């Protein structure tokens, strides 16, 4: 064993202690994370987030102002029932226009991370509309749709 201490490791150690003092993980953030295991939907099909235009698009174009910056598109799939959402920023909130595929009537429960929820209906073409406050974190639970039969379909959580 050598008692030589790498000066880089020493400096990183000091930096770690300093940053941990001024920017620790807030306890309420940890507490919130620990409280959510029971929200897992073991009984539902998961429609995974496949694309989010706010993250994935325009990377190649790199052109500012291309398209409508207040419009965001989200696609969920990998499940028998797929969903597309258009999020229109309507300060101070957001209007979400949704489309189920295949298009058919269904019941859609909007579950928010603050534990509030509401239910809207999709019409016979699978279209629906939601109003959400800015910054809301939510998922959709779709029931009564022929593509998923008796099972519910639940989307990944997203934030508007």
């Amino acid at each position, binding site marked *: 064993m050598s008692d030589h201490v790498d000066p880089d490791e020493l400096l990183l150690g000091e930096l770690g202690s*300093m*940053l941990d003092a001024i920017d620790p993980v807030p306890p309420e953030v940890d507490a*919130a*994370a620990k409280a959510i*295991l029971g929200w*897992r939907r073991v009984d539902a099909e998961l429609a995974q987030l496949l694309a989010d235009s706010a993250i994935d698009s325009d990377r190649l174009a790199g052109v*500012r102002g291309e398209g409508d910056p207040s419009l965001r598109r989200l696609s969920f799939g990998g499940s028998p029932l797929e969903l597309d959402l258009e999020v229109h920023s309507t300060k101070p909130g957001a209007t979400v226009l949704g489309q189920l595929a295949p298009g058919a009537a269904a019941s859609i429960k909007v579950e928010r*991370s603050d534990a509030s929820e509401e239910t809207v209906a999709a019409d016979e073409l699978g279209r629906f509309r939601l109003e959400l406050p800015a910054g809301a974190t939510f998922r959709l639970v779709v029931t009564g749709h022929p593509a998923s039969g008796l099972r519910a379909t639940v989307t990944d959580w997203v934030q508007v």
Partner: protein
Amino acid sequence: MSDLGVLVEAALDGDDAAWAAVVDRFSGLVWSTARSYRLSNSDAADVVQLTWLRLVEHLDRINDPDRLGAWLATTARRESLRVLRLSGRQQLTGEIDQFEEPVGEELDLGMLTSERDSALWRAFSTLSERCQALLRMLVAATEPSYEEVSAALGMPIGAIGPTRMRCLSRLRGNLELAGIA
């Protein structure tokens, strides 16, 4: 099965204590990822909670528990970029060093109790965004692997070592300029 694999299996059976242990294991990694993008307290808290909510539904799809940290870091990075883009604070390149302007981190600078820590903070805070982000990830409380740091910053694993060396040398240079050895 690894320790982490055991915890994940138990969490899948509804064991809240096992889930809490998973959160404890990666809490620093996920928080530091959001902070590396200089998100405010409330934006970082939202990204972190969204990342954990995502994981809860994907827990049974993580085939290799050793990759759980990288999965969390990737999710937190993508959602941090989303926050920056939607608020118009970042160019569309996806690069960590493309910030247009520093944004409002709320740090508790009152916790800098020693002269040396204050000097270290000043030396750190004048580094490039890229250096600050990398060093912040490297010292995250949960000691992330290079794979996790790579996932958090979108930086190739092979670039981490050389960048680490360069950034530490600049940090040391800043400290020497300030007369602190």
